[in-house]
Structure formats: C-alpha cells, structure tokens
C-alpha cells in the first residue's frame, strides 16, 4: 500500500472507515514511520479540538428566554388592586402624620393659606416697585429728548441758514463715510473667513 492521504488519516481517526480499510491502514502504519507520525500529529490536533474550554450558560438563561417568549401581562383587576393599595397606604400615612403632629386638618389648611397669602403680598410689593422704576426711567428719557430738541432750536436761532446747510452736509458725508467703513470691515471679514 502507498502512503496515506491526509483526508484518509482524518477519516481513519474519526472512525469513518470500514473495518477492511482500517486493517489495511493499520498494517501500513506498522511499517511506515512517516505516515505513523502524520497520524499521531492529527490525533493530537483532534484531541485538543474536541476538548476546548466550554462556555457556561448564565444560571438565569432559561428564565430570560421564557420571559421573552411569555412576557407578563398585567390584568385590569391586578392594576386596580395595586392602585387601591397605593391610595390606602397614602391615606394611612396622612392619618399617621396627623396623629404624630396632633394637628387638625383645618389648622394645616389655614397655615397653608397664610403662607400663600404672604407670598402673594410680597410679590405684589416687588412688582409695584418694578413698575415705578420703569416709569422713572421713561420720564428721564423724555426729559433728555426735550432738552436735545431745545438745543437744536437754540442753534437755528444763532446760526445763519448757510452755516446750517454746511453743517447738515458735513453730517451727511460723515455718516456716509462711517457706513462705508463699517461695510468694508464686514467684507474683509467675509474674505478672511472664506480663506
């Protein structure tokens, strides 16, 4: 018999060959060190592959799957019972609070009413002061405009018409230059941004 093929070696090791083939191979292996070594090599490879570490499933794995398949449904009855239990617990807590503080419900309501009233009163004082401050500020602005218009009127009485025209012209040129300068500054900024 000629030397073994590698696929034949694997089938031999895995018990996939007939008894006749197995005995022929065994006979060959007893006289061929090269094939014997190749068989041992692959035997070890298979042994190691078949004993690789196993990944253990988490202890609650079955429960997790079952919960996904059968999600718990809350019935209307159980929902009402839960709500009633919660409400009763709250009522009991309020009752316990009254017992411990020895205050009547009417007294607590009156106290609460006092707190709200004083808060509203304080708030109204603050808002009244704020309105007064705004009206003073408006008066100052009005006075300022009044004196500026009086100043202009006074200037028209002491300056001749020609001087007034020249002054208006100079003001227009200065305004134009100011606007032009601002525009140029903006454009330069845009170019710089594009770069």
């Amino acid at each position, binding site marked *: 018999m000629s030397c073994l093929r*590698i696929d034949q070696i694997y089938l031999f090791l895995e018990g996939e060959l007939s008894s006749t083939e197995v005995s022929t191979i065994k006979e060959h292996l007893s006289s061929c060190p*090269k*094939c014997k*070594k190749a068989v041992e*090599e692959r035997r070890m490879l298979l042994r190691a592959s078949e004993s690789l570490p196993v990944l253990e*499933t988490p202890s609650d794995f079955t429960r997790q*799957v*079952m919960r996904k398949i059968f999600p718990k449904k809350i019935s209307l009855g159980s929902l009402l019972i839960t709500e009633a239990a919660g409400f009763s617990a709250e009522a009991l807590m309020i009752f316990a609070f009254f017992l411990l503080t020895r205050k009547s419900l009417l007294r607590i309501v009156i106290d609460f009413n006092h707190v709200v009233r004083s808060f509203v009163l304080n708030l109204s004082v603050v808002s009244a002061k704020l309105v007064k401050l705004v009206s003073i500020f408006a008066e100052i602005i009005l006075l300022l405009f009044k004196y500026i218009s009086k100043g202009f009127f006074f200037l028209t009485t002491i300056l001749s018409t020609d001087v007034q025209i020249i002054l208006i012209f100079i003001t227009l040129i200065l305004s134009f230059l100011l606007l032009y300068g601002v525009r140029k500054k903006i454009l330069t900024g845009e170019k710089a941004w594009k770069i």
Partner: protein
Amino acid sequence: MSSVNEDKDFISKTLKGEKKAFEMIIQKYQQPLLNYVWRTMGEREIALEFTQEVFMKAYYSLDSYRPQYKFRTWLFKIASNTIIDYWRKKKIDTFSIDPDRSKENYNMSFQISDDEVSVAEKFELSELRKSIETALGKIPAALRELFVYRHINGFSYDEIAEIKSLPVGTVKNRIFQAKELIRRHLEGKN
C-alpha cells in the same frame, strides 16, 4: 427514554400549551447551542443574544417542525440560518451558500509533506488548545462553522449535511480543509 423520544414528548407537550416542557428543551440544548454560536461567531455577548433568539424562533415555529427529522438538527438549522443572515448583513464571506466557490481548495495538498512541522512537539496540550482557539478565528467563517459542528458539537457528517443542505462529500471535504488550515496556522505557515 431515548433523546429523540424525549424531544418528541417535550414538543407535543409544548404544543399543547405546557410552558414547562419548552423550559426543558431550553435546558437540554442551551449549552451545545451557545457553544456552537460562540465558537462560530467568536463573541460571548453576541452568542448569548443569538442563542436566545434561536430559542424564540424555535418556539414560534414549533408547529412547522416535522417529527421525521431530528429536533436537534432542526434547532441547529435555525441557528445556522440566523448566523448566515447576520453574516450576510455584515457582508462576511460565506461560501457555503455560494455554489460557485464550493470547489475552492485553498491549495490544499492531500499528500503528507516531507517537511511537515511537528505540532505535537511544538506545543503542550493546553498550549495547543489556545493556539487552536486563535487559529479558529483566522479561518473562513463558513469553514469554521462546519469545523465547530463536527469537532466541538460532535455532529455526524450526515447530520451536518442535513443541517447545511449540502452533499456529505462536500461537508467532509470542507471540514478537512478547515482542519488543515488550522494546522497550517499552528505550523506558522499562515
């Protein structure tokens, strides 16, 4: 009761509405299924998620199961399809589903080479296991899947052929390729 009859009993009880019977199925197959998914995909968290998904799919399609087939192969077929769908979405090479590439042999020689490096002399058994785990991650995904079926889950070639809907000869050839590719990695040739 044999394993096959036990499965049939669990299935009929589940179909009658006994939740406990499906719990028994999960308990019986969770370990081999998780290890198949883990070794094939390589990530523990994904493996846990996928294994849960496989059981859910199995439960919802249990009425389509035909008792003439083994439940184990039916369940692992669901697992295999789930993984292949995932690989397709991730564009991972899966030539087991591509008939044009079925003749690919990775220049695999069937003859024993004269200069074969001795892996047995190179590694202790524990080291060899670690090296196999590393090498498994380097071989093509579809070959890895078949190797896992055969040498980690202990399926027969016939069962693998049934799960993968492939001829037995093709399955044998591909698993041989997987083993020799792993050996090449261990020899340091790849």
